[in-house]
């Protein structure tokens, strides 16, 4: 058995102020680290949750998003007659031919304009997105200039509240409902009758076709057949994959940004931890000499100071994660670079992020404490005892 853990813990507790100050520095780094991961997780969760793995999105080949895509009507007719498409309780195929257009709206706060997705839906669209629930008002009547707005859009953009009127496509559109789409990208969209919107925007083609697979395992065979059909110029993606691809560019950017910030900050925090641990060693030279005289080997001294540094790191980690957890209360909106539209999402904390953040903090503690601990373990006993 080595030096008891209580020795390391109580030494940290004894110099509480130094411990708290050093741990706070580390907490700041862990906060940045965790917040970046939470941001990336929130973005990916929002976009991935938007899709369903049973659903397939058909886009024109080489289109990165629905906004860039165009599916000709004759191709749509061919595609809606495929046998893999599931049929609803009403006997109708669970397939929606949708129009996706970007419009520019002003935000309620700051008056700053931003892109918002307008989605022209048909009868099956809602059945394909069970997460979407009408929260207030009603759904638009087919053939009318009415729209429903996602809760996030309704809250943040002018003219998108229930009963308000929007002007786009050279027409006025009345907002007759607000829908809740949970934490999905649909919350940042405005939906209306597809045919009305195709006329308003002078669009002769659909943007995308979404359908539910009768048998989810049939996707690969379906994809191979459709993409190999010379009459068709579409590519098929599972809806989850489509939205995951959309989030990838921004998630990558956030990860790199977070990593750069974290690395720069962590150098400071590690130096702070090193100074603290060197001070701890310098203040306890006689103790170290005494422990060595009593028969504790060098590795026990090394372990005691490493444990102290790890505990210091862990304190910083816990503080940082606690602070970062409050970020969950914040919803931010930013440009989705794949669709060039505004997307609202929240910081999302999960066990993986907590675990990674605490591990990161402990690693910082280890790096900061290694040299001082090594110094403590290599002290000459007689010289250490003379330091009394």
């Amino acid at each position: 058995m080595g030096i008891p853990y209580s020795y390391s813990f109580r030494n940290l507790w004894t110099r509480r102020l130094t411990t708290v100050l050093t741990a706070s520095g580390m907490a700041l780094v862990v906060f940045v680290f965790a917040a970046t991961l939470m941001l990336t997780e929130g973005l990916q969760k929002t976009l991935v949750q938007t899709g369903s793995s049973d659903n397939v999105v058909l886009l024109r080949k080489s289109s990165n998003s629905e906004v860039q895509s165009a599916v000709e009507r004759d191709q749509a007719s061919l595609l809606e007659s495929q046998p893999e498409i599931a049929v609803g309780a009403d006997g109708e195929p669970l397939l929606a031919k949708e129009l996706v257009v970007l419009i520019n709206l002003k935000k309620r706060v700051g008056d700053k304009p931003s892109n918002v997705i307008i989605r022209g839906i048909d009868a099956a669209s809602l059945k394909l997105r069970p997460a979407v629930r009408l929260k207030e008002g009603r759904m638009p009547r087919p053939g009318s200039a009415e729209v429903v707005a996602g809760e996030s859009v309704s809250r943040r953009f002018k003219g998108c509240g229930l009963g308000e009127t929007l002007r786009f496509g050279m027409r006025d559109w009345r907002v007759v409902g607000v829908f809740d789409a949970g934490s999905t990208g649909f919350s940042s969209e405005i939906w209306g009758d597809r045919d009305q919107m195709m006329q308003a925007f002078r669009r002769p083609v659909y943007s995308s076709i979404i359908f539910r697979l009768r048998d989810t395992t049939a996707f690969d065979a379906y994809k191979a057949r459709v993409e190999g059909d010379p009459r068709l110029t579409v590519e098929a993606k599972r809806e989850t994959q489509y939205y995951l691809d959309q989030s990838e560019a921004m998630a990558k950017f956030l990860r790199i940004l977070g990593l750069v910030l974290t690395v720069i900050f962590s150098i400071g925090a590690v130096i702070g931890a090193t100074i603290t641990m060197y001070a701890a060693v310098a203040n306890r030279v006689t103790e170290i000499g005494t422990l060595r005289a009593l028969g504790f080997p060098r590795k026990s001294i090394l372990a005691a100071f490493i444990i102290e540094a790890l505990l210091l790191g862990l304190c910083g980690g816990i503080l940082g994660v606690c602070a970062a957890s409050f970020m969950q209360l914040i919803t931010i909106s930013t440009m989705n670079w794949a669709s060039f539209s505004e997307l609202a999402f929240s910081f999302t904390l999960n066990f993986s992020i907590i675990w990674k953040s605490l591990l990161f903090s402990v690693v910082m503690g280890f790096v900061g404490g290694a040299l001082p601990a090594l110094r403590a373990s290599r002290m000459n006993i007689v010289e250490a005892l003379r330091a009394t």
Partner: protein
Amino acid sequence: MAEVSEPIVRIRNLSKAYRRGTQVIPVLTGINFDIARGEFVALMGPSGSGKSTLLNLIAGIDSADQGSIQIGDVEITRLGESELARWRAGSVGFIFQFYNLIPVLTAYENVELPLLLTHLSRRERHEHVEAVLNVVGLADRMDHYPSQLSGGQQQRVAIARAIVTDPEILVADEPTGDLDRVSAEEILLLMDRLVHEFGKTVIMVTHDPRAAEKAHLIRHLEKGELSVT
């Protein structure tokens, strides 16, 4: 006085010098010295005479340049660092001038420290700690931290820590140097008791003639050489 038997400490031709840059400063020169089992020896001498160095060498926390030290059956001058650490843990008890208790540990935990290097169970360790704290009369203060104890009490806790593993020898470096007269007397009486009642061999470095009076034998060191009183 306890019955003096065969030597427990045999020192032969022991030399030690310190180096400061290129300068070599001899501290001990050709020391030959035996200490019998159960003896209470005081090492005296002026500052820089080498008495603490001799004590450190006997305790196995410093290494000699030349010569040998045999404690019981073990020639400690031949031991490597980790063997020496193991030997110290079981065979030597340390009593320091400034007690050298670990401030963040209670009296009980300080005394228990050397036992953490043994294979004793928690219950056995508890029994040993309680027993030695009873010997030094501080069983009722076992949950106190060093800062909550007087100097004399702290030194008694240090003595309990020194004897908890039942070592063959106790080395004490100015054990009364930081104490008032009354506390110093108590500590000397306790050390005397350890020799007479428990048969310990005590080697003490001191400047205090009153402390030295308690010893069976006083050895003077002068410029690295021994003389007997």
